[in-house]
């Protein structure tokens, strides 16, 4: 131990100051993790071009060196090569620690594109930077649809929320650079506030098995990691510029990173996106533009043994929402559904008018890690997020430019974890996190708060371990405990309070009676246990299987507890319930993979049983001075979701390839014995591709996307009297849109402009035949068709 960091202090004894070339240089090479000697490591003394290797005990010695400073390079198979300067003064002894974990190695490799999986036994897919770059001008949700089994729930084409195996919003954790995104993700029209361009790779983990991130990810975890930093003196960057015909928009993203061999690095990235009204094949989608601006800076120090990182990102998304989707009452909804075209169609414009959202999100993070010899790695991280959400409705008079929703959500999180990896076949990690969150709903909106002011406290602790039985079998276990407390101050209309029966069950939480309104102080606590275990088994070189089980619990989110009011885009009154309990998921999954030189195939099956599954369903209509509205209430039931996701890649010959991605999922409400709402349709994507390196690295892919009619949906239709026509009509909000088929083409070439600079030119056409279609999981499907044809030209410069 006392030789630790001997690199700088090996000059203890000095026998002579004169130029003396009789000195011996000897030492030992050890594994950093467990201290075992490393044999056959090569010691290369650059100054005199001399080699030696270590013996079985890891020892080496070189004779007849002059008293001077020498540079040595220590290398070993599967180890990180280390360069050191050593001052020789008489006989000199040095202990050298090498790192031999391949997993960590990729993090320091130059230009590492080989991203690593986070879990060993989960259904996990990685999207690499080439894929992410292709979606540079789109959303996280669009890019993730490249993963079989991941779909999206949309409000138009710019508000895109990822859906993993049928689950979304609060049931998915999104991690960005180690920070769990806290951005009012409970809302169905609240897309993740993430600039896709900040990510170098994205891991998608289905199910709640990545317990280090949280115990409530019943759907799954999405982990965005920044690009790897290489430990060398370098300055590199990337600029992507794209133009689109549909929406007449452009996107610009640029990043620059400076790295130093010693481990220091600093990087910055900025992006902007501007779109006007998008177009359906037959008409303009009035008020669907987008104005997005973001930047991030990232800096720190990184070596194998220790490092720190400071990160800040800013994103501002101003998103227009289809004008025709803002409706007054149920009669307007009936008119909208019955009209083949949206009821408001204006000429193309870049204007972003109400209804719209304007959301800014800041993330500040600082992280520190250190490795201890023969022990493992300690991580400490603090992060702060500020999410400010404005939503503008179509309003009149003085309130015209006033937001209808003005929420500020601030979140502080402190977490630390220790990973023990001294033994190469066994890793053990444990950690704790504590968080504080404050939500402030600004009363100046002049609209009763949809979500109340609250303070939320979270505490979590986990242990996960990973055991490699042999080269073919891995087993992992995880256990997590979470405590959540929410302390809200919420106003209820006295009439609503009584109608809900809260005056009987919750009379003790009323703190102020304002006659027509009551101020209440709901406080809830939740204790959740999550667990995960899995095994991966490699049967032989071609066949392998994964089996996995996860238990997770999710506390109800603020909207499930507190919602109480009119939702204009849906023309419905949405009611939460203070009596809501947590939901519990038991998910089992199995994956079979086959791989030979030409074919790779993966079949992922899952069954997710959720007790007390929280969902929203129609429970009647209420009459107001605006007219009639259906009431949708949050309820709990027992549910089962199960399905199969397939991915296949087949190499036909050196140029041609074929890919297929298909997914099928079913959702049952077991208590009411009916189908669950908002379950993704069966979908199959077939891709025929051609690539030829000789033609300027030409790649092209023809994609066929076939989405089937969703036959399984609950019947939520209801009858309502329409005063202006004096008729009672059935409002069909349930029937799902028909099957649709779209063709897309994407192609690109790469020009090498210089040794370190290349230019990639891509041309993509989506919806080649300008097909009219509506998607079941687009909430604006009642009002308008989905997007028509788009040509996109993208220039990507790597330097």
């Amino acid at each position, binding site marked *: 131990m006392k030789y630790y960091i001997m690199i700088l202090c090996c000059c203890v004894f000095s026998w002579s100051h004169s130029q003396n070339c009789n000195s011996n240089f000897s030492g030992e090479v050890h594994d950093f993790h467990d201290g075992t000697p490393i044999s056959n490591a090569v010691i290369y003394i650059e100054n005199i071009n001399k080699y030696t290797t270590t013996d079985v005990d890891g020892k080496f010695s070189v004779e007849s060196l002059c008293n001077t400073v020498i540079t040595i390079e220590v290398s070993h198979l599967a180890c990180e090569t280390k360069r050191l300067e050593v001052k020789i003064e008489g006989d000199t002894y040095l202990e050298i620690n090498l790192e031999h974990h391949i997993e960590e190695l990729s993090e320091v490799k130059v230009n590492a594109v080989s991203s690593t999986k986070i879990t060993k036994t989960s259904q996990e897919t990685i999207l690499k930077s080439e894929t992410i770059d292709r979606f540079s001008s789109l959303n996280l949700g669009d890019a993730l649809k490249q993963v079989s089994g991941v779909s999206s729930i949309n409000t138009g084409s710019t508000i895109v929320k990822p859906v993993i195996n049928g689950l979304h919003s609060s049931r998915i954790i999104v991690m960005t650079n180690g920070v769990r995104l806290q951005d009012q993700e409970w809302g169905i029209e609240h897309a993740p506030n993430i600039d896709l361009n900040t990510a170098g790779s994205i891991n998608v983990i289905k199910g709640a098995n990545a317990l280090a991130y949280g115990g409530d990810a019943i759907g799954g975890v999405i982990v965005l990691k920044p690009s790897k930093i290489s430990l060398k003196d370098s300055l590199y960057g990337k600029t992507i510029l794209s133009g689109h015909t549909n929406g007449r928009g452009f996107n610009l993203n640029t990043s620059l990173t400076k790295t130093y061999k010693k481990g220091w690095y600093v990087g910055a990235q900025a992006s902007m996106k501007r779109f006007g009204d998008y177009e359906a094949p037959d008409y303009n989608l009035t008020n669907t533009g987008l104005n997005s601006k973001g930047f991030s800076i990232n800096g720190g120090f990184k070596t194998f043994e220790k490092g720190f990182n400071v990160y800040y990102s800013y994103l501002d998304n101003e998103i227009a929402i289809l004008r025709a989707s803002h409706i007054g009452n149920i009669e307007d909804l009936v008119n909208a559904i019955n009209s083949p075209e949206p009821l408001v169609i204006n000429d193309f414009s870049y204007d972003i008018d109400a209804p719209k959202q304007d959301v800014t999100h800041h993330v500040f993070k600082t992280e520190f890690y250190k490795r201890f010899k023969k022990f493992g790695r300690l991580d*400490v991280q603090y992060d702060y997020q500020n999410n400010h959400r404005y939503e503008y409705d179509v309003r009149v008079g003085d309130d015209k430019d006033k937001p209808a929703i003005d929420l500020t959500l601030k979140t502080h999180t402190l977490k630390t974890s220790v990973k023990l990896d001294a033994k190469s076949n066994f890793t053990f990690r444990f950690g704790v996190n504590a968080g504080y969150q404050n939500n402030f709903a600004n009363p100046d909106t002049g609209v009763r708060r949809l979500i109340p002011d609250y303070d939320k406290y979270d505490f979590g602790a986990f242990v996960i371990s990973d055991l490699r039985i042999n080269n073919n079998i891995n087993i992992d276990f995880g256990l997590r405990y979470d405590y959540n407390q929410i302390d809200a101050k919420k106003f209820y209309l006295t009439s609503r309070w009584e109608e809900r029966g809260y005056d009987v069950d919750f009379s003790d939480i009323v703190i102020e009676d*304002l006659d027509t309104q009551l101020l209440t102080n709901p406080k809830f606590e939740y204790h959740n246990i999550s667990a995960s275990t899995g095994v991966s088994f490699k049967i032989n070189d071609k066949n392998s299987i994964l089996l996995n089980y996860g238990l997770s619990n999710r506390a109800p989110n603020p909207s499930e507890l507190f919602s109480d009011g009119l939702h204009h885009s849906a023309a419905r009154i949405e009611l939460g319930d203070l009596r809501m309990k947590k939901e519990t998921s038991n998910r089992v999954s199995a994956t079979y993979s086959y791989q030979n030189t030409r074919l790779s195939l993966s079949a992922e099956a899952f069954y997710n049983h959720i007790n007390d599954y929280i969902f929203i369903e129609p429970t009647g209509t209420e*009459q107001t001075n605006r007219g009639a*509205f259906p009431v949708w209430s949050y309820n709990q039931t027992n549910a089962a979701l199960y399905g199969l996701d397939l991915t296949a890649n087949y190499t036909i010959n050196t140029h041609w390839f074929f890919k297929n991605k298909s997914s099928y999922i079913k959702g049952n409400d077991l208590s009411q014995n009916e189908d669950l709402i908002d379950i993704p349709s069966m979908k199959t994507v077939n891709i025929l591709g051609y690539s030829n390196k000789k033609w300027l690295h030409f790649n092209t892919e023809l994609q066929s996307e076939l989405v089937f009619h969703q036959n399984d949906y609950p019947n939520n239709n209801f009858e309502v009297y329409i005063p202006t026509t004096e008729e009672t009509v059935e409002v069909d909000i349930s029937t799902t849109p028909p099957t649709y088929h779209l063709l897309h083409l994407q192609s690109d070439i790469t020009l090498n402009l210089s040794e370190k600079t290349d230019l990639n030119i891509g041309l993509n056409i989506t919806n080649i035949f300008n097909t009219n279609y509506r998607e079941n999981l687009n909430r604006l499907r009642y009002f308008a068709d989905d997007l028509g044809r788009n040509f996109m030209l993208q220039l990507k410069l790597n330097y």
Partner: protein
Amino acid sequence: MKTLKNTLFLVLATVVFSACSSDDDNPLPVNEEEVITTLTATLTPVGGGASITLQSLDLDGDGPNVPVITVSSPLAVNTTYNGSLELLNETESPAESINEEIEEEDDEHQFFFQASNAIATFTYVDYDENGNPVGLEFTATTAATAGSGNITITLRHEPSKDATGVSDGDITNAGGETDFQAIFPVTLQ
């Protein structure tokens, strides 16, 4: 040592941030600014006589209580009434008149009057700057024979006033969003 310092700093920072942002003050209540709690239609016979009022009152706005509909007395047959509307937000104190907002943006608003069983016909009296009807002022002419039916009053925001029939009071092609709608059962005698 540095680790310890850093950790300590972070813990401190959290405590400070948390302490600043939590306070025990109760939030302020919000009174809905745009809710129309009350619509009163006053019908005054042209030849003189007592006014008749139709009122829809819903003090809890989007809350669960249904609007209270009152019609002060039956209408007389074969009579022309001068009608006027008063819209209030009574969740605010003093009650706020919504009429002013409608008058200021009269080109974006239009009332529609419908009667079942042909018990009455309506004509607009007030017009916006484009010469299109608004409907805060109107006349109602009752049928010649006694009977009963419903009078429906609807306020649309941003209707297509130029669409076919809309300026004559036909709601069919009006579009826009419904800001108010009430049905008044009336008797004609």
